[in-house]
């Protein structure tokens, strides 16, 4: 972190200095102009207004962001931090007129560390709200801690179904009035594409191939639910250990079975190796078609595999190409600040801040009355870069549109082209 955080710190310092210069020069300008117009009196009234504005600025708002900055998901954490910083910068570092301090902690992709840092947010930093967490097990691990501390926590990536569901004995996790989620549940990115393939695309049979861990298994089950609901048949399944060194043996097996449509859940490095092996063994030419939950072909993967992923159909709640005013504005701002396009993780973190912002506006910045803040969050509605966003009041999982995307390459750019949309998908909640 050394270099990066140094730079970040310097940037923060520069920013605050710039902000300071701007505000002082604005005051000076006002002071300089005012006497010319109405004489000395106005100068003092201008000063009084400034003082009044300072006085009405609420107490500092402390936000704890628990993100991975080391280990395998570090880049996801970096992206979410960039998005958070940008949001606050554009809001003049204030939410509902309260100046904001964000404390970033590294969950190091370890539930124990994540929980220890959560306890730090609660007991030591006494943050007003908490956001973040990339890996589902960490969200499950901190669930009881935030629930019993009545700490409002907005999950900004972890997508395990159980986090916003009613489950027996709360295993592996369960919903809490204090937990909201601005990302997705694995149901939302897996079930609709099952319905869609069987229904709209008329696919009769699918073979599933997923990463052998909690999330992959969940995605496979949810896809199966959707696909069989519309009359599709699952002909078989295969799992690869998460982080397998070599995907060729698995893809050899895919090719050795006759079903041409494959549904997959992989992300990051696993997705890259899978797609490379898929092409090296000539599956496209042999008539096989790749389908999957959206992370299979997100930007981090496409940046590496490029046109090798052409033709893959995946479902997600966002795509960088999504054409709406909010997404355009978001992309422009992000690109301008960081010189690169935002990714889906940036959107999740952005919406976490946006939901919090809007709820705080409703409570006039009050975070002490938890029930009031929960009610305000439940009532939040806004247009996100992903489209219309609101929380399901029952589960606190988002109600959101799910887009069907096809990977296409034109002019050297490989992108997820949106081909269809399934409106207002809600997690069943149990």
């Amino acid at each position: 972190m050394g270099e990066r955080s140094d730079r970040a710190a310097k940037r923060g310092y520069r920013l605050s200095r710039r902000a300071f210069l701007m505000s002082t020069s604005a005051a000076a300008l006002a002071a300089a102009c005012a006497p010319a117009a109405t004489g000395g009196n106005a100068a003092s009234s201008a000063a009084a207004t400034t003082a009044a504005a300072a006085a009405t600025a609420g107490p500092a708002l402390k936000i704890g962001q628990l993100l991975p900055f080391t280990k395998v998901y570090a880049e996801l954490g970096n992206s979410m931090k960039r998005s958070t910083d940008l949001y606050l910068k554009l809001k003049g570092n204030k939410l509902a007129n309260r100046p904001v301090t964000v404390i970033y902690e590294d969950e190091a992709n370890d539930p124990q560390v994540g929980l220890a840092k959560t306890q730090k947010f609660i007991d030591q930093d006494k943050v007003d709200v908490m956001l973040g967490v990339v890996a589902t097990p960490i969200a499950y691990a901190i669930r009881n801690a935030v629930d019993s501390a009545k700490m409002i926590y907005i999950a900004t990536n972890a997508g395990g179904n159980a986090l916003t569901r009613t489950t027996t004995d709360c295993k592996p996790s369960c919903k809490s009035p204090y937990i909201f989620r601005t990302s997705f549940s694995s149901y939302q990115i897996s079930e609709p594409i099952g319905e869609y393939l069987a229904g709209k695309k008329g696919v009769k049979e699918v073979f599933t191939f997923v990463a052998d861990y909690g999330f992959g298994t969940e995605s496979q089950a949810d896809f199966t639910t959707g696909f069989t609901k519309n009359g599709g048949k699952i002909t078989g399944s295969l799992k690869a250990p998460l982080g397998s060194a070599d995907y060729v043996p698995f893809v050899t097996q895919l090719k050795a079975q006759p079903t041409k449509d494959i549904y997959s859940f992989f992300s990051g490095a696993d997705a890259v190796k899978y797609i490379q092996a898929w092409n090296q063994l000539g599956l496209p030419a042999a008539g096989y078609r790749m389908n999957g939950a959206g992370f299979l072909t997100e930007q981090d993967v496409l940046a590496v595999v490029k046109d090798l992923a052409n033709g893959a159909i995946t479902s997600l709640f966002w795509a960088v190409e999504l054409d709406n005013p909010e997404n355009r504005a978001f992309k422009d701002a992000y690109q301008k600040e960081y010189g690169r396009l935002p990714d889906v993780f940036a959107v999740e973190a952005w919406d976490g801040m946006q939901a919090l912002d809007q709820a705080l506006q409703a409570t006039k910045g009050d975070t002490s009355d938890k029930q009031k803040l929960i009610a305000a969050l439940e009532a939040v509605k806004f247009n996100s870069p992903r489209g219309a966003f609101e929380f399901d009041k029952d589960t606190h999982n988002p109600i959101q549109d799910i887009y069907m995307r096809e990977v296409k390459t034109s002019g050297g750019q490989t992108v997820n082209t949106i081909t269809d949309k399934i409106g207002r998908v809600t997690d069943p909640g149990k």
Partner: protein
Amino acid sequence: MTFEDALQQALNGLSFGALLFILAAGLSLIFGMMDVVNLAHGAFYMLGAYVALSVTQATGSFWVALVIAPLVLALVGLVVEPLLIRRLRGRHLDQVLVTIGLSLVIADFIRLRDDWGWGATVRSLPLPAGLDRSIPIAGSDYPTYRLFVIAFGAALAVLLSVLHRRTRAGALVRAGVGDAEMLSALGVDTDRLFTLTFAIGAGLAGLAGVVAAPVFGLQPGMDVDALIYSLIVVVVGGLGSLSGAVAGSAVVGPADTFGKVLFPQFALALIFAIMALVLLFRPTGLLGRVRIGR
């Protein structure tokens, strides 16, 4: 499984084994010569892959990277050995322990260097031109790069074996494995010999980084995966000998591949079980000279 599928998987297992051999060769060499299990081997491998990434991006050539990355890593070895390993001569365990610390630092260094295009993002080393296509074998397409890997692994094994048996350096190495003190008494500069050995071992890790990266990819955590695979290979094959590394990779590669195919629910544990079995029945490893204990 049809015969064609079995043939394909055998080929997969063979090429995976070849990659494992390239991966484990440096670890085996350093151990055989210096009695040091270099637990930074995985980190050296990772560093080699990232250096190769930068070189490939700068020059556009995989082949340049194949030369440069091992050299850079050999240089790292040349610095590390006198700085950390030599001063702990005679304290074998401590020599191993400093390499743990070293591996933590190297992996973290790579994560922090996103200004070099490294960092924590998923990266991949593109396949070299000419080896990026597939050819039909046994009724199905097969990637030429994996065939290249098999050939490369075999060539490396032959080359190392010739160097080992036919050259003066090889003679010193063979003598060093037998008795370093005797060598020193005979007036050989063992400091230089060990530094050189360590550098070559590190260079081999870097070489593995270049050759394996197009298949295994570049991401945080790749160092630990590579280290564990190479440890298993050298333990199964027999520590500290070239033929042991060959035998180990020839067993572990296909066993891991077929294991994943036939018993996917045990995929992760399988290679460790193989290792435990081998040790139970042959405590020296398949071709080892040294018993690991009594």
